C-alpha cells in the first residue's frame, strides 16, 4: 500500500496539476498575461462598487432636500467613489492592459521583472481592501473617510476627522502607491530592455510609447504622493505639524504636495488611453497613424508640461495674480500637444476605409467626448473663469468628460479590440452596439447638464440642495442618465458572459491589425511566441508580412 502523499510535497501530482491549472496557478502566477487579466478583473470589480456608490449619490440628488442618504454617508460615498475610480479602477485598468499587451507588442517573453509584477498587483489589491475595510469601523466617528479624494488638510486632520477612516485612506493609498510605482518601473524597464530585435524605439507601437512615458510620470510623481501621505499620517498619529496652521504648519502646503502628484496623475490616467486610441483608429481606418512622430513627441511634451501645471487646482486659494498667471499659461500650453493628437487621430481616418466596429465607435466618440473635456479644461485654465466655476458642478462635468468620455471610452474600445486576443473569442458586436449607444446616451445625459448646473451656482460635494429654479429638473435628468449608464454596464457584462461561452472563435488576427500581439495565437501561449517573433522592419510588422511588395519602409521612402 502506498503512503498517503503529503499535500504540496514534491511528487504530489494533484498539487502540481492544480499549480498548473487551478486557482493556485493564478494566485501564485508571475505570468504577465495572467496578471494582466487579474488587474483587469480586479479593477472591474472595484468599478462596479464605485459605480454603485455613484448611483446611490445620484438617487440622493434626484430631488431637493432629500433624506435618502445622511450627509455622513453621502460624504463617505463621494470620497470613496473618487478614490476608488482613480486609484483602483482607471490606473489598474490601464496598467492591466499594459501588463498584458506591452510584452506581446514588443515581442518579449514576459515583463522585465515578473515577480515584481506579481508584487505590484497584490500590494495594490491589498491597499484597496485596506481602504474598503474603513467601512467596517464602527461607532459615531467610524466609517469610511469623508474628506474627498484630495483629502484637504486641516479637514483631514484628527481635529476634524477623528475617526480612523482617514488613516485607512492613507494606508490604503500607500499600498496602492507602492503597487503603482513598482508597476511603472517594471513597464519602463520592460520597454527599454526587452524589445525584440528590430523593435527600435522609433518603431514602437504608440500604445507602448505612451506606456513608457506614463511609466516615467509614475516614477516621478508617485513618491510625492507617498511622501505627502506619510506627512499627513505623522500629523494624525504622531502629532506632527506639517499641515496645521495653529502650530506653524500650512494647509496650503498639503495642496501643493497633493496636486504636484495629482495633476500628473490625470495624465497617468489619460496617456495610456491615448495609446489605445492610437492603436484602434489606424487599424479600423486601414491606415497607419497620421504623424507618428508628432503623436509620440506630443506625448512627451504633455508629460513634461504636466509637471508644471499643478497649481491650476489652487487658483481660488488667493496666492497672487502673478502666481496664477504662470500656471494658467502652462495649463493652456498643455492643450497644444493635446490638440495635435486630436487632429492627427482625425486625419488618420481621412482617405481611409473606416470600419464601424464597436471598438471604433468608442474610439470615434472618444475623440468628441475628450475634446469637450479638453475644451472645458481650457476654460478652467483661464483664471477668472476658474474663479467662478471651480468647485462647482461644472468641474464635475469637466473631469467626467476627461475621465469617462475620454479614458473610459478608450478603455471600452480597448476591451472590444483586445478581448479576442485575450480570450480567443470575439465579443458579440450586436450586444456591443447596444452597449455603446446606451453608454453614449447615458453618459451625455448624466454629465452634459452638469455644466449648466455649475454655471447656475451649484457647488460640488453637496449632499442636498434647496429647490432652486431649474435645479430640480436638471438633477433628476442627470440621475436618469446615471441609471442608463449603469444599464449599459450590465449589457457589457451580459455580452462578456455570452461571448466567453459562445462567441465566434477569433483566430490569430481577426481585425487585420499590424502589431505583434496579433502574430501569435489567441489566447497567446505561455511563452507568447511559439514559432519566434516575425521580422520587424517597420512600425507595422504584420502589414509588411502581408504586403511584401509595398512594405511601410518602401512606401515611406516613396513619400520622402
Amino acid at each position, binding site marked *: 500500500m502506498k503512503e498517503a502523499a503529503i499535500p504540496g510535497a514534491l511528487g504530489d501530482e494533484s498539487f502540481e496539476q492544480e499549480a498548473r491549472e487551478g486557482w493556485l496557478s493564478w494566485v501564485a502566477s508571475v505570468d504577465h498575461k495572467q496578471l494582466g487579466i487579474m488587474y483587469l478583473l480586479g479593477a472591474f470589480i472595484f468599478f462596479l462598487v464605485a459605480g454603485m456608490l455613484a448611483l446611490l449619490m445620484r438617487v440622493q440628488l434626484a430631488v431637493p432636500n432629500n433624506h435618502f442618504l445622511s450627509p455622513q454617508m453621502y460624504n463617505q460615498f463621494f470620497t470613496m467613489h473618487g478614490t476608488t475610480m482613480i486609484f483602483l479602477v482607471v490606473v489598474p485598468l490601464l496598467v492591466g492592459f499594459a501588463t498584458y499587451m506591452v510584452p506581446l507588442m514588443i515581442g518579449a517573453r514576459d515583463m522585465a521583472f515578473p515577480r515584481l509584477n506579481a508584487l505590484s498587483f497584490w500590494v495594490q489589491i491589498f491597499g484597496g481592501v485596506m481602504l474598503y475595510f474603513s467601512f467596517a469601523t464602527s461607532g459615531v466617528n467610524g466609517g469610511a473617510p469623508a474628506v474627498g479624494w484630495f483629502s484637504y488638510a486641516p479637514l483631514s486632520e484628527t481635529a476634524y476627522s477623528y475617526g480612523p477612516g482617514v488613516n485607512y485612506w492613507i494606508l490604503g493609498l500607500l499600498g496602492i502607491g507602492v503597487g503603482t510605482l513598482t508597476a511603472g518601473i517594471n513597464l519602463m524597464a520592460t520597454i527599454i530592455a526587452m524589445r525584440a530585435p528590430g523593435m527600435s524605439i522609433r518603431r514602437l507601437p504608440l500604445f507602448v510609447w505612451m506606456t513608457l512615458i506614463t511609466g516615467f510620470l509614475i516614477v516621478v510623481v508617485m513618491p510625492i504622493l507617498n511622501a505627502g501621505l506619510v506627512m499627513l499620517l505623522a500629523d494624525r498619529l504622531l502629532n506632527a505639524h506639517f499641515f496645521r496652521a495653529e502650530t506653524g504648519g500650512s494647509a496650503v502646503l498639503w495642496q501643493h504636495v497633493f496636486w504636484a502628484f495629482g495633476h500628473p496623475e490625470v495624465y497617468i490616467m489619460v496617456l495610456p488611453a491615448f495609446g489605445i486610441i492610437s492603436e484602434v483608429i489606424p487599424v479600423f481606418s486601414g491606415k497607419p497613424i497620421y504623424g507618428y512622430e508628432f503623436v509620440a513627441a506630443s506625448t512627451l511634451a504633455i508629460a513634461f508640461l504636466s509637471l508644471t501645471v499643478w497649481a491650476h487646482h489652487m487658483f481660488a486659494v488667493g496666492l497672487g*495674480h502673478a502666481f496664477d*498667471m504662470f500656471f494658467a499659461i502652462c495649463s493652456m500650453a498643455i492643450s497644444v500637444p493635446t490638440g495635435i493628437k486630436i487632429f492627427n487621430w482625425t486625419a488618420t481616418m481621412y482617405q481611409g476605409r473606416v470600419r464601424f466596429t464597436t471598438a471604433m465607435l468608442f474610439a470615434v466618440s472618444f475623440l468628441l467626448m475628450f475634446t469637450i473635456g479638453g475644451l472645458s479644461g481650457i476654460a478652467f485654465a483661464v483664471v477668472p473663469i476658474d474663479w467662478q466655476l471651480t468647485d462647482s458642478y461644472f468641474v464635475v462635468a469637466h473631469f467626467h468628460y476627461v475621465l469617462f468620455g475620454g479614458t473610459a471610452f478608450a478603455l471600452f474600445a480597448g476591451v472590444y479590440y483586445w478581448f479576442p486576443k485575450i480570450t480567443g473569442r470575439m465579443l458579440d458586436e450586436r450586444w456591443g452596439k447596444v452597449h455603446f449607444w446606451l453608454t453614449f446616451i447615458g453618459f451625455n445625459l448624466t454629465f452634459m447638464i452638469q455644466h449648466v448646473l455649475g454655471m447656475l451656482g451649484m457647488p460640488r460635494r453637496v449632499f442636498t440642495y434647496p429647490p432652486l429654479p431649474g435645479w430640480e429638473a436638471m438633477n433628476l435628468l442627470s440621475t436618469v442618465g446615471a441609471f442608463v449608464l449603469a444599464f449599459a454596464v450590465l449589457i457589457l457584462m451580459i455580452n462578456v458572459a455570452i461571448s466567453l461561452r459562445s462567441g465566434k472563435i477569433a483566430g490569430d488576427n481577426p481585425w487585420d491589425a499590424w502589431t505583434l500581439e496579433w502574430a501569435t495565437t489567441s489566447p497567446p501561449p505561455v511563452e507568447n511566441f511559439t514559432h519566434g517573433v516575425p521580422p520587424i522592419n517597420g512600425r507595422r510588422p504584420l502589414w509588411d508580412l502581408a504586403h511584401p511588395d509595398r512594405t511601410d519602409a518602401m512606401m515611406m521612402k516613396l513619400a520622402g
Partner: protein
Amino acid sequence: MAGPYTANAFTLAPASPQAAAISNLFAGTLIFLGAILTLVTFLVIYAVIRYRDRPGAPEAQQIFGSRRLEIIWTVVPILSLAVLTGFMMRAMIASDPPTADARPDLRIVAHQWWWEIIYLKSGVTTANEIHIPVGKRLLVDFRSADVIHDFWVPALGRKIDIVPGHPNRLWIEADHGGTYLGACAEFCGNEHAWMRILVMADPPDEFAAWIKQQSAVPPKPVTADERRGAEIFRENICTNCHLRSVGPDLMHVASRRTLAAGALENTPANLAAWLHDPNNFKPGSNMPDFKLSADDLRALVAFLETQK
C-alpha cells in the same frame, strides 16, 4: 419679496463690475471653445461618413502624415491661446482689483457650517446674511475658524478660499439692488451643503436703517411667554455657544431670512420645527436637540421672535 431660493446665483447674470468682467470673458471663451468643438465635430463626422467602409469604397490610402499640417495645427492654437491669455490678464485685474493698504469694511469668519459677519466700523455682528449698500465697494477680510471654506456668490464675482492661517481679502459690491445667493464652495465636512449665504444689496438709506436697527438692543420681553422664553434661553446654556461664536449671534435673529445657514426659511413655525429637531434639517450640525417640552418650545420661539 421673492423667497431666498429664487435669488440670483447665475454666473452669466452679473450684478457687479467684477462679475461682469468674468461673465464677458466667460461668454467670449465659450463662443471660442464652441467654435473649436464645432470644427472638430465636423471634421470627425465628415471623415466617418465620407470614408466609411462600404461596398465599392476605395482602398485605404497609406499616408504617413504631413509636416505642413502639423505646423498649422501647432501654430494656430498657440496664437489663439496667446490672444486668450491677453483677455485673461485684463479680466483678472478687473475682476479682482488690488486690495493693498485699504482698511477692510467687513470681516467674514467661516465656521463649520455657518458664516459670521462682522461690520468693522459699526461693530454689527450677524450671521449667514450680508447687507451691502448698492453701488459702494466694500473690502472684505476673510478668516477661517476651523477648516478650509470658500466664499462664492456667483452674481457678485469670483469665489475665494478661506484658508486657516492664510487671510484673504476681496472687494465686493453690487450695481443694483437685489438678493444674491451664494454658498460655501470648498468641501468643509458634514454639513457643507447647508452653508449657504445671502447677500442683500440695499439702497443706501435702507442699508443705513438696517445698520441702525442691528446696532440697537432688541426690546425687552413683554408677554409671559416671551419672559419664560428668555429664561429658557439662559437656563439652557444657549449663550455658551451663541455668544461665543460657536454658533451664530442671535441678538437680531428674527430679522434674518433663513435659519441654519439656509436650511430653512425663517418663519416662527420653521424656527419651532428647527428647535424641536435640528437633526431633521441639518443632521450632524453642532446644534444640540434640547428635548424641549411643547410649552417651553412655544415660549422660546416667542422670545426669539422678539429679537429683531
